[in-house]
């Protein structure tokens, strides 16, 4: 039976490699810039949602404030770049570290909160972050930061003539977040997280360090999301508080995981593959005007999904083993 388990893990890894291979080849056939754009965003949100899933899905600490870490990644990278000339590659790492540290700093008081109080705290904190950046003159305040682009450069990770490098970076981010999840799933941390989610009291009685489990999950999750934020800033080459720290990012990270299957390895990827093209296409159709409309649509989706499919789309495929009577 343990062989069966090992085989399943190996199978997941092979499927992921095949899917990544196929994804890597799509730009050969897809030349349309609009479609390429959608593919890039889909991969990015798949990676973001996968990262969100580590804290909120596996460890059960539902965050609707991850836009904060996304924005921190973007701002750290671009402030370092525009003010100090630090290359975005280093900025990306710095943004990840800053976000992970802030996630742990916030976790210190807030991980003592349970259930709804925690969710509300994440929303409030992210809104406060947004306000701070709105009023922070050195960081461009509401005007934001425009990233000077002087042609294609891998060093500065900016490209005018082609979207392909962005595509491959988004793919790499998605693969990284998936692989980290896969790897942690069968580790002490993975087991601790699920135990903490299901029953913190029982977990504690079994020697689980509940508080540090949450801290670890928050750090990994925030780090990866911040790398996504750095990438996004380079990709759109202009950032302001709303466009990298707005509440819609928190929702767009949560939704794919919720749709596909929260706390599962494949849920976020599946959810993003369905959801992001749909939202991007509708946005394209109806014009990018009303942000409020997006929020209403996302909110409605969350409610509908959690009512109709509380365990996500994956639960339709892989039904848990049939229960039998005792022995």
């Amino acid at each position, binding site marked *: *039976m*343990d062989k069966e*388990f090992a085989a399943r893990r190996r199978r997941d890894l092979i499927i992921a490699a095949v899917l990544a291979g196929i994804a890597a080849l799509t730009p050969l056939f897809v030349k349309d810039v609009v479609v390429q754009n959608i593919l890039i965003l889909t991969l990015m949100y798949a990676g973001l949602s996968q990262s969100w899933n580590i804290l909120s899905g596996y460890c059960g600490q539902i965050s609707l404030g991850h836009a904060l870490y996304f924005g921190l990644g973007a701002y750290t990278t671009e402030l370092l770049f525009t003010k100090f000339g630090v290359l975005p590659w280093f900025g990306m790492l710095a943004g990840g570290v800053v976000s992970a540290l802030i996630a742990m700093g916030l976790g210190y008081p807030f991980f003592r909160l349970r259930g709804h109080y925690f969710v509300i705290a994440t929303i409030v904190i992210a809104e406060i972050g947004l306000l701070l950046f709105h009023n922070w003159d050195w960081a461009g305040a509401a005007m934001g930061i425009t990233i000077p682009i002087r042609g294609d450069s891998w060093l500065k990770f900016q490209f005018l003539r082609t979207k392909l490098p962005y595509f491959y970076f988004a793919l790499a981010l998605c693969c990284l977040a998936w692989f980290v999840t896969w790897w942690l799933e*069968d*580790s*002490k941390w993975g*087991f*601790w997280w*699920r*135990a903490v*989610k*299901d*029953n913190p*009291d*029982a*977990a*504690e*009685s*079994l*020697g*689980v*360090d*509940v508080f540090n489990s949450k801290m670890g999950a928050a750090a990994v999750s925030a780090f990866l999301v911040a790398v996504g934020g750095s990438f996004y800033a380079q990709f759109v080459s202009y950032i302001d508080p709303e466009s990298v720290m707005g509440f819609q990012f928190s929702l767009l990270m949560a939704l794919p995981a919720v749709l596909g299957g929260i*706390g599962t390895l494949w849920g976020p990827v599946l959810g993003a593959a369905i959801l992001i093209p749909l939202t991007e296409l509708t946005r394209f159709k109806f014009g990018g005007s009303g942000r409020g409309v997006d929020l209403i649509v996302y909110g409605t989706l969350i409610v509908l999904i959690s009512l109709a499919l509380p365990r996500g789309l994956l639960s339709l495929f892989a039904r*848990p*083993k049939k*229960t039998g*009577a*005792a*022995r």
Partner: protein
Amino acid sequence: MTALLETRGVWQRFGGLVANSDVSISVGRGEIVGLIGPNGAGKSTLFNLIAGVLPPTQGSILFDGEDVTNMPAAARCQRGVGRTFQVVKSFETMTVIDNVIVGALVRNTVMREARRKAREVLEFTGLAARADVLASDLVPAEKRRLEVARALATEPKLLLLDEVLTGLTPTEAQTGVALVRKVRDAGITVLMVEHVMEIVMPLVDRAIVLDLGKVLVEGKPAEVVRDPKVIKAYLGDRHAVGA
């Protein structure tokens, strides 16, 4: 040799309610000790104090020669205190074996070893056939056994069993009794709360009776059940039937 567990003048107050008052008990290595008493006597509260869910209002707790009074639950588990919950607390979205692996990780850092340990415990507790079932799909008797399996996987020196034999059919209860004996034979000290006297009295080496938060009587099971104070405490209580 010192006792494995000792509580010294332990009090627990919840607001105005005194759940444990001046409780001093000791449990020797290799014993099976029964903790009995009417509903609300403070048995589960005492378990929570021993396991480190909360520190006592007053008094101290010694485990294995060490003062653990203010030690958090996870650290006590590491020291060798294992426990089950009266109201079962399975990890519902995890499979049976994954539940047990969480416990096994206390002493096995390599996943492969933790998994092997968990299998071994599932064999020991008779849950092996249900290893890959979700905990939420277990019947109540199996959930009780999973509580025991999870705690055993932490390789405790002391196992606290809170009503693991309650609400079982007679056959299931006998299987449970056999399991408790097996646990003791494996060198683990057992402190168990149980209401059904016919089951618990033949099993334990010693019985401690709690009533209204206090230790009422302590001694050999046969003496304890005949003690007038105990009969009085149970009088009118449904569990006195058959005692």
